[in-house]
């Protein structure tokens, strides 16, 4: 009865995991423990969701996983090995494997750089710096058409000239070009209009099938997590209070916090209506 738009893919080896991962902001009386000794193990190919209400530390965790924020404590393992991003070169290599889509498309782009530059950056990141422009252009056109955008209409424009939904689709086109092993999508649909949400989600799922990446959805919407994911982690005040397969956690919640999140989604046990996702 789960209305998932995805095929069951074989779940493989561990791709990303963390042990005792902690991040503290500030000190003294202003101290905030945003992420508090979390352990997790994400497998290759599975679809993961991290669910928690606003302020529970999801974005902080995502930034640590992306290597944009230093953990206060704990380790992160990538493909079974302790992650090493101590130099720019190693960071670059890491970022060829893990990429992100941020919550607010309007602040995700540099307002002084054109769309072309954003996409060319991705080709360069994949080692295509020296390709002839025709080939680069063909790649950009392909990426744009994958997300139903026309490159001809975007070239020489700035990202802020697009709507929120189009900007998020451009983000997906970026991922299409980068072909990372892991994609962290931090509430990718929460800032855009309801009509675009389902499209964005569909495109992300198609992209997953296309390039075989492991997506990690971060959301405050447990219904959406149920709709898309295999494995769900429930986060409260920086701690994973519950985790497991989406069916187990959501149809049979053990924690009152999970229950509360579920109560906010009235229509869960009915047929899922795409337009409200």
């Amino acid at each position, binding site marked *: 009865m789960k209305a998932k738009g995805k095929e069951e893919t074989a779940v493989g080896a561990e791709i990303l995991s963390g042990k005792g991962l902690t991040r503290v902001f500030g000190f003294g009386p202003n101290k905030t423990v945003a992420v508090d000794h979390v352990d997790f193990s994400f497998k290759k190919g599975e679809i993961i969701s991290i669910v928690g209400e606003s302020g529970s530390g999801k974005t902080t965790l995502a930034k640590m996983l992306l290597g944009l924020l230093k953990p206060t404590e704990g380790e992160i393992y990538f493909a079974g090995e302790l992650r090493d991003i101590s130099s*720019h070169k190693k960071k*670059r290599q890491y*970022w060829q494997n893990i990429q*992100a889509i*941020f*919550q607010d498309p309007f*602040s995700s782009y540099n307002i*002084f750089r054109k769309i072309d530059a*954003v996409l060319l950056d991705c080709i*360069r990141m994949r080692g295509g710096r020296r390709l002839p422009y025709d080939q680069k252009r063909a790649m950009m056109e392909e990426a744009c058409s994958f997300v139903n955008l026309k490159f001809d209409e975007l070239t020489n424009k700035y990202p802020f000239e697009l709507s929120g939904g189009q900007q998020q689709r451009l983000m997906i086109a970026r991922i299409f070009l980068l072909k990372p092993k892991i994609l962290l999508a931090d509430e990718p649909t929460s800032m855009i209009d309801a009509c675009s949400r389902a499209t964005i989600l569909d495109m992300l799922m198609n992209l997953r099938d296309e390039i075989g990446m492991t997506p990690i959805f971060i959301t405050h919407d447990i219904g959406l997590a149920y709709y898309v994911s295999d494995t769900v982690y429930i986060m409260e005040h920086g701690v994973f209070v519950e985790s497991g397969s989406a069916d187990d956690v959501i149809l049979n919640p053990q924690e009152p916090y999970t229950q509360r999140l579920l109560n906010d989604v009235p229509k869960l046990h009915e047929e899922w209506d795409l337009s409200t996702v």
Partner: protein
Amino acid sequence: MKHLLGQIFRSGKFLFGFVIFMIIMLTVLIYPLLVEYPPLKTISRGTFLPPGIYVNVYDSMTFSESYTLILDNAATKRIASKLNAEDRQAMKEWLVIGAELPEDEIDVDDTAKLIDLWTTNFDPTVRLPGMTNADRNYYIRLTASLDGLLATEGATVAVANEDTGVLEEKYVIDQTTYVNVGEVPNVRVLPLGTDNFGRDVLTELIKAISVSLTIGFVAGTVATTIGLILGLVSGYIGGIVDDLIMFITNLFTVIPSIILLILISFSIGQEKRGAFTIAVVIGFTSWVWTARAVRAQVISLRNRDHVNLSKLSGHSIIHILAMDILPYIASYVVMALILQISSGILAEAGLSILGLGPRTTEVPTLGLMLNWALIYQAPLLGKWWAYFPVILIIALIAFSMNLMNTGLDQVFNPALRD
């Protein structure tokens, strides 16, 4: 970009400041093309010649066509230039007290009668009660200037005969003789007179503006560059680099930059203090404020998502600083640069007034002009043209740049827009 420029120029304050600044700039650029006098050449014997048009007397008598103009009020004007209303009143007072003439018999407006009464009655040896020496000298000078005032015949020009040494009459210049200034070969306009060294103040001033603007520009660029680089690095990298840079910055903050400036200028020594050196020294002592401001802005930018996205795209720190941070603070940096330029000009003026400015022989600066005017007591002597235009220009430059700055602030900070 176009849109932004449009907005900037629609800001009244910016436009006003910009126009004032451009007028100054254009004057500085165009004046030397039209007038090729060397700026620091002594052209007058005697100092502080008042502003005016100086016509060569010798040329007007000998080399210029002379014309006769019959003008009704010529004599009156000539007399008035020697004998004004105050002089007449003073003469009347003397005559009433010193010669005990009845007051109603003296008509100050009847020049001929007044002078007649004066020549018959005035006695320089008589001391009136309460009369100072200065008063006495004034009356004696006045008497001398009255000599020949009412003459109607012309002046005779005589030249000594080469052989005999006897003066021979050459010609007579009538009171109705005129020359056309345009035909006199040597006329020098000194709109702002001359200074204590007998140099043309206007030419000097224009050169000084251009030198001071250059000093301000160099100082501002040096200060902004240092401040920008330190601010960017310390704000973006953080950690121990930040601590170190902030330690240096705090050191510079604690010591007032003017004191540092004075000490450095003093220790450089008179010989090496060129305009460029002074500019660089000013720049090196005034970057602190820019560094702090830039750092604060960078800290608020470095965790933005567009910076994160740029990192995820594999860009280097240099690329991120140059492309993802700098453009966002560019407007701020431009504003800081404008303020630094104007405060650089003021700093040079302050240093020069203290006698620690650039070396004096080659170029003038606004500060040096003030320094000279002060040393030679122009304000005390009432020679306003030697210092007032300089002060006015310094004020105008600072005013126009601050106006531009406020105008930019209003465009870039929508919260300030009214």
